[in-house]
């Protein structure tokens, strides 16, 4: 166990805690994550009383070996991508803590909570205004996008 790197240790601890005490509406695919600690799949349910009530989304977390100093790469995957002004149709999420405002004190759990809160605070289901252009031109990795966080309200 001595060979375990600090990032692995932290991911292992995070996985354990997330499985033990997950936030409401959030479940992690523990078997897949424990097989490959750098690729997590998190299932998320629309919070009751919001626009996304009853909907199910799938989030994918990709970690580098520099985690937690590097932010994880988080995207929606699967058939159901939430229609939200900060979520592009290819699953990319426009969220400051995933890039510029990342801090090593943040965790998978905190990111999940942020996304749930982002979805829950949505008042109108619509795609970002530059969705089609972005989807055509963007890099596969959302972290390579120079995000312009124009709306802090949601």
């Amino acid at each position: 166990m001595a060979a375990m790197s600090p990032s692995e240790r932290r991911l292992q601890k995070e996985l354990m805690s997330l499985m033990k005490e997950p936030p409401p509406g959030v479940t992690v695919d523990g078997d897949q994550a424990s097989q490959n600690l750098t690729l997590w799949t998190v299932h998320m349910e629309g919070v009751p009383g919001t626009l996304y009530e009853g909907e199910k989304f799938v989030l994918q977390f990709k970690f580098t070996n520099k985690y937690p100093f590097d932010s994880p790469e988080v995207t929606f995957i699967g058939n159901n991508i939430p229609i939200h002004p900060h979520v592009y149709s290819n699953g990319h999420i426009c969220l400051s803590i995933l890039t510029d405002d990342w801090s090593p004190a943040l965790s998978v759990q905190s990111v999940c909570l942020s996304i749930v809160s982002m979805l829950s605070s949505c008042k109108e289901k619509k795609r970002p205004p530059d969705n089609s252009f972005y989807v055509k031109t963007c890099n596969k990795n959302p972290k390579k996008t120079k995000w312009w966080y124009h709306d802090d309200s949601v």
Partner: protein
Amino acid sequence: MNILCTICSDLINQAENIYVTKCGHVFHHHCLAQWIERSKTCPQCRNKVTDKCMFRLYPTVSNENSGEDAATLQSRLDDAQLQLRQQRVKYKENQDKLTAVNADLKRQDDLLKSYEKRLVSFDSKVLALKEQLDYAHLQNRETNRIKDENEGLKKNMQTLNGLQKVLNATSDEVEKMLQGYSDVRTIATFATALKRALCESETKKNETRDRLHTVKQQLSQEKKNSAELQNKVLQLEDSLHQVQTQYELLKTDKDMAELKRQVAQTAAADRLAADGPHSPLRALNDAILEPASNSSFDTLVNNIASSDSPYLSLKQGNVFALASLQRAPLKMSDKIQPSENLYLTSIKNATKKLMNEKSSTVSTKHSIFHKKEPMKIESLDSCGPLDISYDGLGGHSKLDTFPVPRPTIKSCIPKISAKHKLKRPNPTGSQDIEKMLKKVKNK
């Protein structure tokens, strides 16, 4: 008291380097330093943090119930569980690896077995092939031997062919052929073969010569016989002549007797005429007397003329045959008796045979190496012209020799030529006899 480093989410041990930011947040030194390199903010409150505005913390922790509180235990439990989980994962991996290795081992085992089997089969195959190879070698050797034999036989055959050619061909062809051959041995073989052939032909020649001699002797013997027979004919002719003269005498005697009787009869008739009719008795007497005497003579002559006695007919036939042997063989055969005919034909055949043999041996015998002239043998036929000049009437000036095959060997039989002269008057003699017989018959 359990302080947690939010960067690595590990408990902060008092023995470690503990740093605290200006804003009062506590981290491991290495965690904070790593983050400060990227962003000069506090991970927890995003306040500005620099290397100078963070300080090392030296807490003094009491030893009372150290590590015994629930949080510590919980943390340890978490650690243990984490380790257990990892061990399990490792164990599972190893298990999988083991099964994989086992399966692989089994596969390799099977493979090994199959290879062993194949090895065995290959071994047997190799053995079989080796045997086949040996057999093939053997066969090859046999074939080579047969080939050599064949070559030898071919050579022999060629030599034999050459030999045959040499034996059959003319001298010029043989010369040419021998020029063509450079092999001394072959030429030597040819020479020996030719020599052998020469010896054989020599012996054959000798044999034939001997046979010729014997035949000649036989011929002379036959000639002697014929001479004897002619002598006999002469004697018989003489005796016939005597008989005829006797007959003439007897005839004259008879005539004389008849005349006497007639005289007597006339006298008697005169007497009878005087005496009376006793004429019937006299006529009867005449009738008895006349036919008796006449028929006795006639039959005697006829008997002599048409007698089957070998002597008489032989003489006739012989004379005729000798005279007209070549000219009229058919006539001759008509005239002569079967026995005589056979005799003559046998002589003729013997002579011809001899001649043929001679000529045949000459043709095969006289090879190209001696260019001897073949022995000349005059056949019976070659004597034809001599006989043709003889007209069969007897008076011809030409010497009528009996057809003798070889004038060249006259010296061997001088007696025969002498006897020929004796033979000569015979035909005329026989003719005379015939004429005389005819006369007698006519009478």
